[in-house]
């Protein structure tokens, strides 16, 4: 099962490191990362494997959102299926 993690916020040192550390703590494997900085805003998308995740997906989503708030970032974890459904026939 895959999930897409999106991270948006003001750019600063260590965003990728802290997000990856959080994900690793829940045994989430990062498969792919794409990242840009637009007008000082950091935008990152990660494809992750969550089959071995140590907590339920709904809980992971809540924890990451909370962790994002503490870092001044907007973090969403969403099952990949929703994007596939909406953008692939």
């Amino acid at each position, binding site marked *: 099962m895959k999930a897409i993690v999106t991270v948006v916020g003001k750019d600063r040192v260590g965003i990728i490191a802290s997000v990856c550390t959080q994900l690793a703590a829940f045994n989430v494997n990062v498969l792919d990362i794409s990242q840009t900085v637009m007008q000082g805003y950091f935008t990152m998308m990660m494809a992750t494997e969550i089959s071995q995740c140590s907590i339920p997906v709904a*809980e992971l989503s809540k924890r990451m959102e909370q962790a994002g708030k503490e870092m001044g970032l907007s973090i*969403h974890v969403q099952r990949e299926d929703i*994007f596939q459904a909406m953008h692939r026939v």
Partner: protein
Amino acid sequence: MLNQKDILETQAMIEKQHLDIRTITMGISLLDCCDPDLQTCCDKIYRKITRYAKDLVKVGCEIEAEFGIPIVNKRISVTPIALVAGSCDTDSYVEIAKTLDAAAKTCGVNFIGGFSALVQKGATTGDWKLIRSIPAAMAATERVCASVNVGSTKAGINMDAVAEMGRIIKKTAEATKDDGCMGCAKIVVFANAVEDNPFMAGAFHGVGEPECVLNVGVSGPGVVHHALQQVKGQPFDVVAETIKKTAFQVTRMGQLVGVEASKRLGVPFGIVDLSLAPTPAVGDSVARILEEMGLEVCGTHGTTAALAMLNDAVKKGGVMASNHVGGLSGAFIPVSEDEGMIAAAERGTLVIDKLEAMTCVCSVGLDMIAVPGDTSASTISAIIADEAAIGMVNTKTTAVRIIPALGKTVGDRVELGGLLGSAPVMPVHSEGSEAFIARGGRIPAPMQSLKN
């Protein structure tokens, strides 16, 4: 892998354009709960609903969190109570309404639909008992929704039931006067009611449905509005294509959530209702879509054509996105629940006569309309008869959900709160229809050929 643009587009739809799943509704058959003893019947009903729907809200919340898509309402619909209670030895079905209310509260759902009777051709003793229990049932409960089907293309219109429903709506307004006549917001009078509608207040679990089923209603006026802002001034061919593509995306999401929820609940997936359901929030209005097409204010000349195109494009786009489509499928125009409709009604551009014309080309009918408190029962019945006639002749579902705002008149507003919004009191014709309604009987079913 998915590209960034697609991911960001989906997130913008959800966060900025109010995209959501409007409802997942579990339909539960209560046909095996019949019992001559009222209390036993109530016990069976309560036990069955709370057993089948105990995880509905929990599963809904889990899916919300995992997919990052809000599921605004989790609801239950049941077999029309007039059928279930027909064998009960009682004169009033209010106790059953209270049982439904209690079951809804236990399950954590915000509405339960099915306090209903289907009387398009004639009413049984049980049907009349149910209809006459509606005012007290609406006053005694918080989450129960009632509906009565008074006409159909095959049966014609039961004018005795139409006349009675005018009086019932007035009585319900009186019974719930202290609560902004709220009871009337939970009563729908249908023609050609559908058996798999997930939307309240008109949802019930039809007799042709399985033991238990899960239906989904999607929403997304904000998404369509946003998409149309990108094609300003373009011809209608482009507008229709844009709406179709958007409706496809919205419906795919509904299909995904419906299948996932039914899998987790162990209940068969029924249908996706291809709907554009507005909310009172700014940016979530059907009226504003019509205005985006070039109308100065919703309700002016051109509104019916704009709505016809919107409604058709929503269906065309949505139908390929789901393996089973049903319910009321189409754009909803509930006045009190749509910020743009409220503004147009307050301005006087959107009037009941125009809304009636609009209902010929879109989903459902005269929905969430407040009229002056002194509107007579026969005038309300006549409004219902007009709407039922449109449904009957055009082979479509129509409905009336009308609120006689006691103590209020044109220019006032009725505050209903939450998703029900606030309804500006709209003028009705002062000339009476009393003798017309007093005739009773049945309007015969219409010709299905010689269409003109």
